[in-house]
């Protein structure tokens, strides 16, 4: 029987509060993951003071789809990201 390709991926996001372990649609922008992590840490008012990272590199283009990162970085179910505060040096 022909199988439909999976249209979701399970991602784990480690934050400074609770961790996120959820399925995300591949056609959604990565910003969707960022926003969920932002809510988890209660940082909604300080959006620019956080970063989403994979293998210690900041994922900067959040408007790209999750599917784009799956292809480019070989993400698989259970891939782990990190959500960290960015230093504010003034």
């Amino acid at each position, binding site marked *: 029987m022909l199988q439909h390709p999976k249209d979701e991926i399970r991602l784990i996001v*480690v934050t*400074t509060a609770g961790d996120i372990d959820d399925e995300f649609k591949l056609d959604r922008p990565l910003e969707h993951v960022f926003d969920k992590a932002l809510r988890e840490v209660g940082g909604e008012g300080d959006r620019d003071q956080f970063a989403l990272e994979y293998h210690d590199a900041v994922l900067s283009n959040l408007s790209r789809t999750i599917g784009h990162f799956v292809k480019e970085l070989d993400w698989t179910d259970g891939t782990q990201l990190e959500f960290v*505060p960015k*230093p*504010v*040096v*003034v």
Partner: protein
Amino acid sequence: MGWREDARAEIDGLKPYWVSKHCWSPRVIEPEGEDVLDLIVTLGSKRLAGRILALRLRYQADWQIAGRREAFVDPDDPASEGLEHWPPAGDPNVRGINPMHDPPCICLRGAWGYHSVLHPDRPMDNRSLLDLLLELQWVLNE
């Protein structure tokens, strides 16, 4: 709870994932006869070619307002402090760490240097120890 219990609670509450990832090895020292609680944290720095540093965050009765008093100490002998244990001021320096300031201090939220020396108009607002350590780790690695 008193200030000391609050300090212990936030240290004990450090998320094990981050402690393990960055090999912080937090240790608490309560010097006899002094009304302080010291947290010693080990920090590796990619920016400084893998140098291992030891940060002492000193909690005092006013820490929730004034910030945690910072100093870099000898990783092998935390009782020994001095500028030689701080990241260098010159190239490669570390953003936000100011060893040549009087007093030497760290310009990161949650540290005494930020809230009581450089930006006393900016309140602590419950800035967490974990956030401070992660931001410090960021600048040490970038």
